[in-house]
C-alpha cells in the first residue's frame, strides 16, 4: 500500500513471535503495514507469491484448533512455503513425552519455522530454547495469542481510520494523521473486552498490544472471571457493570464462554451470565458512534453476543477472520525473510 512497508530496513527483525515483549511499537506498526501489502496479494486473481519458496513451516498443535491452523496454512501457502503439520490428537504426541523430546523428533525434518499451539502457558518459550527454527506462538494456554491480537489490531486500524501515521499502515484513513504519533495509533482509543478474561489468551494479548500501541483497555465480567489484579496494568481498568464498561468504547470484544466454567463453579448459570453480560445492540448504543463489535470465535450465539448484533452492521467478526490471513502472511514473512 505504501513504499515504506517494503523497505527492509524499516521492518522488525525477530526470530520469534511469542508475545510482544520483544517487539517495539514501531516493529508492530511496520508489521501491520506489511500486512496491507499481503492483503493486496490476496485480491489478485492468482493469490500466490513466491516469497517463501523453499522454506518449510511446521504447524505443531498440541491442542485442537482448526480455524487458526487453517489460517496459518493459508498464509504459508499463499507465499509458496512448504507446510507440514503435526497434531497432538495423533498417537505421536502423547502426554508423557517431554516437550523437548517431541521437538527433537520434529526438528530432524529441517523446519524453518514452527507455528505452535499448546495448552500450557510458556511452552513456546521452552521450545524456543531448544531449536534454531523461528517460533510463532499460535496460542499457549491462557497466556498469549499474539497473531490474534495482531489481526484484531489490524481490523481496528482499518475501521478506526486513525492509523495513517504508521509506517505504511494507512488503513482506510478518513483523516490525516498530521501530528499523530505513528507508534501510538490507538492513542485516545478505547477497547472494551467482556467475558472470561482470566482464562483468555486472546484477552491477554489484546491487552498487551492495544496498550503498547497507545490505547486504553476496559475489562468487564463477573469477578470470578476478571481478577482485580488486571486493573494494576497501566492503561487497563476493570469495571463490573457492562453498561459502564461499554460507555465511550471504540471497539467492544466478546470472548468465548466455555461451558466448563459453570461446572467449575465459576458462574452460577448461563442465564445469569446472559442477563448481566450479554452484548446487545441496546448496550452498544452506549459506546462511541460507529463503535465496532469483535469476537475471536468460535461464537456461541445468543450467549456472549445477541444474534442480531453479531449479524448487524457493527459486527466485524468475519473481517477478523479474513484479516487473519494477510496478518499471518506478514508474520511469517517477517520472521523468515525479514530476519536477514
Amino acid at each position, binding site marked *: 500500500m505504501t513504499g515504506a512497508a517494503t523497505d527492509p530496513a524499516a521492518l522488525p527483525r525477530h526470530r520469534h513471535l511469542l508475545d510482544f515483549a520483544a517487539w517495539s511499537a514501531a516493529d508492530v506498526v511496520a508489521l501491520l503495514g506489511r500486512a496491507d501489502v499481503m492483503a493486496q496479494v490476496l485480491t489478485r486473481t492468482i493469490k500466490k507469491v513466491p516469497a517463501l519458496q523453499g522454506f518449510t513451516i511446521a504447524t505443531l498443535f498440541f491442542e485442537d484448533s482448526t480455524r487458526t491452523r487453517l489460517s496459518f496454512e493459508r498464509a504459508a501457502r499463499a507465499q509458496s512455503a512448504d507446510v507440514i503439520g503435526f497434531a497432538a490428537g495423533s498417537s505421536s504426541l502423547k502426554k508423557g513425552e517431554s516437550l523437548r523430546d517431541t521437538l527433537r523428533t520434529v526438528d530432524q525434518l529441517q523446519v524453518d519455522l514452527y507455528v505452535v499451539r*499448546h495448552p500450557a*502457558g*510458556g511452552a513456546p518459550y521452552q521450545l524456543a530454547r531448544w531449536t534454531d527454527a523461528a517460533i510463532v506462538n499460535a496460542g499457549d494456554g491462557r497466556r498469549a495469542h499474539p497473531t490474534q491480537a495482531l489481526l484484531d489490531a489490524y481490523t481496528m486500524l482499518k475501521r478506526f481510520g486513525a492509523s495513517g501515521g504508521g509506517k505504511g499502515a494507512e488503513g482506510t484513513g478518513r483523516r490525516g494523521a498530521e501530528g499523530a504519533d505513528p507508534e501510538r495509533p490507538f492513542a485516545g482509543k478505547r477497547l472494551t473486552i467482556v467475558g472470561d478474561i482470566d482464562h483468555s489468551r486472546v484477552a491477554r494479548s489484546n491487552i498487551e498490544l492495544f496498550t503498547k500501541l497507545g490505547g486504553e483497555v476496559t475489562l468487564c465480567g463477573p469477578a470470578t472471571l476478571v481478577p482485580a*489484579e488486571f486493573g494494576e496494568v497501566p492503561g487497563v481498568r476493570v469495571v463490573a457493570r457492562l453498561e459502564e464498561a461499554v460507555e465511550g468504547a471504540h471497539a467492544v470484544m466478546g470472548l468465548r464462554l466455555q461451558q466448563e466454567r459453570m461446572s467449575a463453579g465459576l458462574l452460577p448459570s448461563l442465564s445469569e451470565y446472559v442477563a448481566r453480560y450479554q452484548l446487545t445492540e441496546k448496550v452498544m448504543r452506549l459506546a462511541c458512534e460507529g463503535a465496532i463489535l469483535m469476537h475471536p470465535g468460535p461464537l456461541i450465539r445468543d450467549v456472549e453476543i445477541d444474534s442480531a448484533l453479531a449479524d448487524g452492521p457493527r459486527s466485524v467478526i468475519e473481517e477478523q477472520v479474513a484479516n487473519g490471513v494477510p496478518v499471518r502472511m506478514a508474520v511469517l514473512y517477517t520472521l523468515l525473510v525479514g530476519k536477514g
Partner: protein
Amino acid sequence: MSDHQAEDPTGSEPTSKRQSPSRSRTSARRGASGPRTVLRRARLASADGLSEPTDVYVRGGLVEGFDLGGAVDLELDAREQLVTPAFIDLHAHLRDPGQEVKEDLASGLAAAAAGGFGTVVSMANTTPPVDDPGLVTDLVRRAELIGQARLRPAATVSVGMRGERLTDFAALKAAGAVMLTDDGIPIADAHLMRRACEYAAELGLVIQTHSEEPRLRADGVMNEGRVSRELGLPGNTASAEAVMVFRDTEIARLTGARVHIAHVSCERAMRVAEWQRANGAPITIEVTPQHLTLTDESLRAFDPVFKVAPPLRTAADVAHLKEALRRGAVDNIGTDHAPHTLAEKERDLLEAPFGIANLEVTFALLYTRLVLTGELPLAALLRLLQGGPASVMGWQAPTLTPGAAADLTVIDLESELPVQGRSFKSKAKHNPWEGERLRGWPRLTLVRGNVCYDREAGDR
C-alpha cells in the same frame, strides 16, 4: 550400637538393635577402641565464632576427644576450616522404593553427605508409599549397608496415601519410622487428621503436614498473584496454605499432638502458625531453602525447574520468612529435596512435576544469601540445621563433645564456586541456582566416623 547412641536417635538403629540384643554397653565401649581417625586443624563453631585450630580424634564412630595425640589409622586435614556436627534434614524425597529413576537410597544419601547432612528423614510418597512396617525395615536395612548419611524413614499417615484410613502407627514406629506424613498430598479429610493426631500423640510420633487446602489450591502450578495473572498460568493462592495451616495447627492444639508444619512458604501461613503456637498449639515450623531465596518472578523464565509445591511466593513473602528466621520463629530448615528426571522437568509447566533438588546446595546457598549478607548469624543457620531439627524430633542436639556420634562436616567458608549440577551426587542435576557463585561448600563429611564425602577425592 551403643546405648549412648540409642539415647540419641540420630545414632540409634532400631532394627539392628533388635536383631543384636547381645551387644551390651561393655562391648560397645570395647568397639570404641576400633579404627582411630584424627581430623587436624579443625575450627569448631562456638559462641564467640570459630575456635583455635584443634585436632579432633574419632574412634569407633564416636568423638573421642581433642588434641589427644597418639597413633591413628587415618589422618585428615581440616585446613583450619569450620568443623561442625553434620546437618539433619527432616524433609527429603529419596524416591526409594519405586521411583529410582529419579533418585535412590544410594544416590540420595550420598547427596545428603555431600551437602553436609549426616541424618535424613526420607519422605514416604514412594511407589508404593511407605505405609507398611516391612517397607520401613527394608529401607533401614538397605541404608545401613550403603553406609552414607543415616536414614530415618518417615511413614505415611494414611494407607496408600489415599487419605481414607490410618496406617498402623505403632508397628511403623517399631520398625523404625520416626515421623508420619502424607507429604506431597495434603490430608483433605479433617476428621482423619484429627484421628491421626490423637493416635500419634499417644505414641509420641511427630506428624508432619503438607498444609495446602486442596480445593483452594486447585490446579495451581505457581503462586497466585500479579505474576500468575500476567503469565496466564493457573495460580495457587497463599490462602490455600494459610487456611490449612490454621486447620492443622488447630487440630494439634485440640489433640496435643506434635505437628510439624512442613515448608511454610508465605507470610499469611507463617503468621497463622506463629499465632497458633503462641496460643498453645504444640507445633513446629519448617522453611525450605527455595522459599527463602526465590520468588514467583522466576516463573517468567517458563522453566519447570522453578515449579514446586508450595509454590515460590512473592518478594514480600521471602522477606517475611527471613524475618521469621531472624526472630527465631522457625524451628528448622528442611530441604524438601524433591528430585525428578530432566525429561520430566522438560515437560510443559502444566504437566511437569513439582519439586526442586537441593540437598547439595542448601548450606552454601543459605550461607551466601543469608549469612554473608548479614541477614542471619552463622550460629543461627547452624542451629536451623542441627539443634533445631533435632528438637523438632525430640532428639538430642548433635554436638562434637567426647562420646557423641562422630557425624561431622568440614565446610570451606572461603572458596567461591559456581553451582554445578553435573557434579551432584543426586540423580537430579538440574537446579534453580545453576551457575550461581556461592561460598560455604561442604568439603568433607563423616558419618559414624567414616568419611562419606570428600569433595576432592570423590566417593569413598
